[in-house]
């Protein structure tokens, strides 16, 4: 079957099998390997991308289901050489260790901050509760999100 998906603003039309999962479509068909593929059971959350603006676990979404929809992956965060503030936050506060869970964490945390610019530690932990960091770097991930929240608030105030 043929599917047309917009990924990070670029429209792709591809011939695929109905059973192809979105995570494999992104990685193998489009070569966008930033999205990681982990547990295959929607537990670990390393495959999180956005579909029509909402985080989804792409190992449990068919590529066909993304037909006609907008997908955003970790490759769509940075603006050229300029990191998204959430990426900068992870860099500043050591939010990544081995880096395996990082793409999914970044996508979830970006979505959280877009909807709640000043989340509490509890709200951050709830937001990432469907994602597993095998290095148990949760504390530094939470710090990274808080750093980003403060940084974005300051940038917004300075722009006024």
């Amino acid at each position, binding site marked *: *079957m043929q599917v047309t998906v917009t990924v990070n603003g670029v429209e792709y039309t591809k011939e695929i*099998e*109905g*059973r*192809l*999962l979105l995570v*494999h479509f992104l990685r193998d068909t489009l070569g966008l390997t930033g999205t990681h*593929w982990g547990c*295959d*059971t*929607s537990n670990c*959350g390393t495959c*999180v991308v956005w579909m029509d603006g*909402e*985080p*989804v*676990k792409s190992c*449990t*979404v*068919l590529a*066909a*289901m993304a*037909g006609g929809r907008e997908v955003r992956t970790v490759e769509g965060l940075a603006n050229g050489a300029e990191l998204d503030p959430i990426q900068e936050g992870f860099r500043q506060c050591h939010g990544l260790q081995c880096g395996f869970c990082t793409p999914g964490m970044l996508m*979830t945390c970006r979505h959280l901050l877009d909807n709640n610019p000043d989340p509490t530690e509890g709200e951050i932990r*709830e*937001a990432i*509760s*469907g*994602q597993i960091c095998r290095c148990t770097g949760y504390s530094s991930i939470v710090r990274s999100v808080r750093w980003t929240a403060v940084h974005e608030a300051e940038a917004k105030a300075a722009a006024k």
Partner: protein
Amino acid sequence: MQVPAPFEYERATSVDQAIGLLERLGSSARLVAGGHSLLPMMKLRLANFEYLIDINDLHGELGYIRRSGDEVRIGAMTRHRELLESDALAQVLPIFRDAERVIADPIVRNRGTLGGSLCQADPSEDLSAVCTTLDASCVIRGPGGTERVVGMEEFHVGPYETAVADNEILTEIRIPVKADKSGSAYAKVERRAGDWAVVSAGAAIWLGADNRITDARVGLAAVGPNTTGIPEISAALRGQEPAEALYELAGAIAARSCDPATDTRGTADYKRHLADELTRRTLRKAVERARS
């Protein structure tokens, strides 16, 4: 890499068109809503279909929460996140928010639906236990716009088996709302956050003007082939004044009425203990809410 066996993908654009596809494709087809229960089962080859009919585009038609007269009507495509976030629903039926807080995780809740949860018919499924507790009815639509309404006992035929025929679709859940002061609550014991229940319990209670119980219902999950309502508890509680001794009695009835199996999640004895304790806790909370 775990992928499902090959199938043909179809996308439905309306309820009636979905029913038309089901009529044509028969038992070789299955509807997929959120897919977070079905797709993992297909990856493991526990389920196999020649056709999958994607009904996510029916969210506009079947994604709603409405209060109409003496009932709440919820469309089958209403997503977990919408059930969790609805203040109107939490006000009249707080059990939904209790349950949604412990269903999977926020990202899975973006996709999963009420109808999908009920049609999956997993004996440990939280919303099935909620709907059993609340004496919900299920609206099932078939060819030619025909509709039939069945109660939860009839809806769940057995594990992973429902009353929905090959050419039908669950469209709506209806929950009665009585005029009395009411309260409801849900609690579950799980091995880790967002897991399936080891055991869970829901309770709903209605109080009359004299503060006596006019009706009470308890529903349990993961302790038998289906989620279970326990009429004996309702009979024991009606007409009584809420009290700790009454919750103990209800808990004891729950423990001996259920039919748990010993497995990796716990022994049958442990699960009976949980059924007892969770029945007491949810009844206590439901009464507290009915009084406030």
